[in-house]
Every structure is written in structure tokens, then in C-alpha cells.
């Protein structure tokens, strides 16, 4: 009779699947070859970035098209302090730098709403990229070679920790009073403020929290390549890919990013090396297509199927 889907067993199934996936990823380096470990590392990187992006953009509706700026700043800090700072300190400092940058620009930037916020964040990321490029050109450093980076296994587990932290952070925030406040301001900022939600403080906090982990992710990923180029760690396609993954997944909890990341990751693993341009075409089509056909993402499709199934055909 009822068209309402039954949530309880489904939620438990999601949790079990998530824990099994996490266990598999944790065990991966002990039996897989280095190529597979490197692939898993990329998957974890996207997961950490997408979950962090969702903390700001899915919960508040402020769609950031410039999250790569935090990633790039973190990577840049590690490279600049290479072999003068101990690595764990540099990685922690990368997270702090990204959070600090978000805190500094947050107040004026979060006054800008809707599509203007989207293009503003994009512009800021490009401005930071070109400023650093101009400074590097003026000082005569075009690229750097890093010697003595840690072992792949160490990098892998650092990224595993970051992906787990980003996921847990979104779970905790999403269920908290803070998270409900963010959702309320997403629906109607003025109404939320009238009801006593500290809108400005909440937005700023979400922005800072969503910046810290991408900063550390950038720092860890900088260790993977021995050859460092500024343009690469500030590539806008990093932001776009994270958004595409989140949109593909749908919803505003941790399940969407996991589904979307897995889906697009598999597509890219199949296509990226063989046909990079075709991969970019598919990425663009995924963005445009999901907006037109399935604005609710994979989760939206699953839910509507479940709802149809429950209504009994």
C-alpha cells in the first residue's frame, strides 16, 4: 500500500557495505602489487576530497568550484619546506594553512551567493595559481625535483586516514545540531537566521572544516610525484572532478560521495590512460547529463526505484 520506503534495514546494509569496503581498502597493501596500491591511493584521494567538498557544498548549498586551491596550497607548502621540516609537521601545517586561508577569505567570500559564489571560488583558485606561477617565474623556479619521498605504503595509509577522517567528519557534522543548522540555511538563509541559526558563523566554520583535509590531501599527494609543477596541483579539473563525483552520487550524506567516487573512478581508470580526451568528454557529459536527467544522482535513482518497487507493481 504505502509508497514510503523502509529505511532501517537499508541503512544497516549501507553501514555493513561501507565497513567491508573500508576493511578491504585497509588490507589492500598487504596482498596487492604496487600498481594496485597506487590505484587504491587515487581512489582514497578522491574520496577524501569529495567528502570534504560535500561538507561545505552539499550541506550549505554554497557550491565551491575552487576547492583545488586548498589542495594546491597544501602541496605547495610541503614542497617549499621539503627536507627542512619533518614530514608529519609539514602535512599538519598544510592542513592548518588551508584552514587559515579559508578563514581569512571566508567572511567576504561567503557573502556572495548562488552562481556568483561558484564563479568567485573558481576565480580565487585561478588567481592563487597564477600569482604563485608569476612569483615562481620572477624568482626563476619553474619546477622542482623531490628526492627521498617516503614509501608508497606510508603514503597509502596516510591517505587512508585522511579519507576515513573526511568521511567520519561528514557523518558527525551531518547528524549534529551544526549540520542541521547548515541544512536549514541551505533551504532559506533568511528564515534560518530568523529562527536563531548563527548563519555567518556556521557558514564560515563549514568552509574552514571543508578546507583542512584537502590541504593535507594535497600535501600527501605531493609526495607521490618526484617532479613538482605548480600548474598541476592547482589544476581546476581537480575541483571539477570532485564535484562531478558528488553530483553523480547525490544525496547529502556520506553514501553519495562513496557511490559517485567509485563510479567515476572506474570510468576514469578504464579510459584515462587510453583516451584522456575521451575521458574529459565523458566527464563533461556526466556533469551536464546528470543535471538534466537525474538531478538527484545515483542515490536519487535508487530511491525512486525503491519507491516504485515499494508501491507495488
Amino acid at each position: 500500500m504505502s509508497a514510503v520506503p523502509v529505511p532501517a534495514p537499508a541503512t544497516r546494509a549501507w553501514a555493513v557495505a561501507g565497513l567491508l569496503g573500508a576493511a578491504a581498502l585497509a588490507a589492500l597493501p598487504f596482498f596487492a602489487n604496487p600498481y594496485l596500491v597506487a590505484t587504491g591511493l587515487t581512489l582514497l584521494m578522491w574520496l577524501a576530497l569529495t567528502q570534504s567538498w560535500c561538507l561545505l557544498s552539499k550541506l550549505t548549498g554554497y557550491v565551491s568550484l575552487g576547492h583545488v586551491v586548498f589542495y594546491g596550497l597544501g602541496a605547495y607548502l610541503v614542497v617549499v619546506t621539503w627536507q627542512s621540516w619533518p614530514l608529519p609537521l609539514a602535512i599538519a601545517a598544510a592542513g592548518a594553512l588551508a584552514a587559515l586561508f579559508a578563514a581569512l577569505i571566508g567572511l567576504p567570500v561567503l557573502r556572495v551567493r548562488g552562481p556568483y559564489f561558484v564563479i568567485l571560488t573558481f576565480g580565487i583558485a585561478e588567481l592563487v595559481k597564477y600569482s604563485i606561477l608569476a612569483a615562481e617565474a620572477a624568482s626563476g623556479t619553474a619546477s622542482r625535483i623531490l628526492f627521498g619521498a617516503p614509501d608508497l605504503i606510508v603514503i597509502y595509509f596516510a591517505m587512508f586516514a585522511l579519507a576515513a577522517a573526511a568521511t567520519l567528519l561528514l557523518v558527525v557534522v551531518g547528524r549534529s545540531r551544526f549540520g542541521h543548522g547548515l541544512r536549514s540555511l541551505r533551504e532559506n538563509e533568511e528564515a534560518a537566521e530568523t529562527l536563531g541559526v548563527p548563519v555567518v558563523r556556521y557558514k564560515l566554520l563549514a568552509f574552514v572544516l571543508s578546507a583542512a583535509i584537502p590541504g593535507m590531501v594535497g600535501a600527501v599527494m605531493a609526495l607521490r610525484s618526484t617532479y613538482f609543477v605548480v600548474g598541476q596541483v592547482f589544476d581546476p579539473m581537480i575541483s571539477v572532478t570532485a564535484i562531478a563525483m558528488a553530483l553523480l552520487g547525490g544525496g547529502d550524506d556520506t553514501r553519495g560521495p562513496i557511490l559517485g567516487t567509485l563510479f567515476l573512478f572506474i570510468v576514469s581508470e578504464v579510459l584515462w590512460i587510453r583516451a584522456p580526451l575521451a575521458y574529459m568528454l565523458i566527464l563533461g557529459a556526466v556533469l551536464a547529463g546528470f543535471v538534466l536527467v537525474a538531478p538527484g544522482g545515483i542515490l536519487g535513482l535508487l530511491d525512486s526505484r525503491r519507491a516504485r518497487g515499494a508501491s507495488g507493481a
Partner: protein
Amino acid sequence: MSSIVDTLLSGQLLFAALVTGSLYALVALGLNLVYGTLRMLNVAHGDVVMLGAYGAYWAFSVGGISPIVAAPAVAALGALAGLAVHRGLVRRLFATAGAGSTRLEGNSLLLFFGLSIILQNAAALAFTPNARGLAYWTEVYHLGNVAMTGNRIAALVIAGATCIAVAALLGRSLLGLSMRAVIEKREAATIVGIDVDRVQAISFALGFATAALAGALVSMLEQISPFTGFPFTIAAFIVIILGGLGNLFAGLGAALLLGALETYGVALTSANMRSVLLYGAFVAALLLFPKGLFARRARAA
């Protein structure tokens, strides 16, 4: 030191600033129409410029046709593409998201971003990602101590004339009047019997046509690649934010200002600073006018 001052005061930089500014004005004009009548930020707008540039390039290098002769045909193709995008994508987006909904603006942005990625990479697949250029009408003319190539003079004249013609058309005709009515208040325009859908379709056609025309002019002036378009999108955004929505003459002034900022800024610093200046102006303009220059009234349901 004095040589820098001489360069700054010479007419040479002023001419360069005018050429850049008039191209920005032409590109921004089309973006302004589309954003004004639909409230959608078309981030793929610069890619239409890029495609127009390729159209003129191929007409020249395969058929030997002058870019100035090819420009009207390229603009006509642009108009058709604009109609196709309006029919195929925008109407559909209105259908799924619902006109006037808050999600619409964000969703349309992602849609156009996807379109932009598709256009750039399709162009890279079809034409290779390498930059290419054509040499047409490079004869140098002198006016006082200012040296000008024929192609730059032509670009300045055509872009300037088109901007003024479109602005005059919108200022005087019934179509222009209904377009401005839709820009100012879409719901009220519907009530007084304006066919909003038709006005939006015409805006898309006109916007894409002027962008493609600008592309044909760009092909004469600089090297083009599949990724040439995006800086034009950014420049056009700055112009709209500074000049105001639907205000085409103020947009012209803002475009010339941006052209001057870029030309003189690069002359004073270095070519590395071009993108820094462009994005710096962009971020500053958005922070100073957080909702665009026209603070939008909350639209009643």
C-alpha cells in the same frame, strides 16, 4: 625609466587597449543578453568564441576566404547553435528544475560547465590541442607615430560597429523593448503579453552570433587553441559585473576599462601578470558587488 613613460603615453598602447576592449565588449554583449533574459551564467560562452575562431581559421586556410568575409557566415552558424542549445538544453533544464527555482541557477552553471568541457575537448580531438594562427592583412599603417596593422583596425571597427548596432537595435525596436522588459522583470513581462520563451531564444541566437563573430575577429589577431575561450568568458563576466545587467552602453565602458587595465598592466609588469590581473580584477569586482552590480530583488513566487 623615461622610456617606460614614453611607451605609456604613446598612442600605441591606447590603440592596443581599444582593440582588446572592443573585443571584450562584443563578447560581453552576448553574455549579458543571455544572463539578463534567463539568469543563467553561460560559462561556455567563451568556447563559442573559440569555435568561431576555428570556423574563420578553416575558412581561411582551406578555402582561402578572408576572415572578414567569413565573419557573417560564422555569426550565422553561431546563431543556429544558440537556438539549438536553447531548444535542446535550456528548455529541458527549465522542465526538470522548474523556472524560477533556486536550484536552477546552480544547476544551469554546472550544465554549461559540462558543455564547456565537452566543447573544449571535442575541439582538441578534432583540431589537435596545438595552437595555430593565420596571417591576414598584416600590412602596417601609420597614424602619427602609432603603427597599426590592418587586421587590428578591421577588428576594432567591426567589433565597435556591431556593439553600437546591437545596442541601438535594443534601444529602439519593439524586440529590444521586450528584451529589456524580460531582463528587468520576467514575470511582469509575461503579464503584459511578451512571449518570454521567444525573447529568450532570440537572446541565445544573438548572444552566440556575436560571440562567434568575435571569434572570427580573434582568429586574425592571435594564436588560437581549443582553450582560447575561457579567458574571454572571465573577461565578459568582469564586464557584466562592472557594467551592470542589461546596460549595454555601461558594459561598453567597462570593457574598454578592462582592456586598458590589461594592456597597461602587462606593459608595466610582465606578460606573466596578464592572468593575475584578469583574475584579480574578477575577484575584486565580485567581492565589491557580491550580487552583481544589480542587487537582485527577491522574486516573489
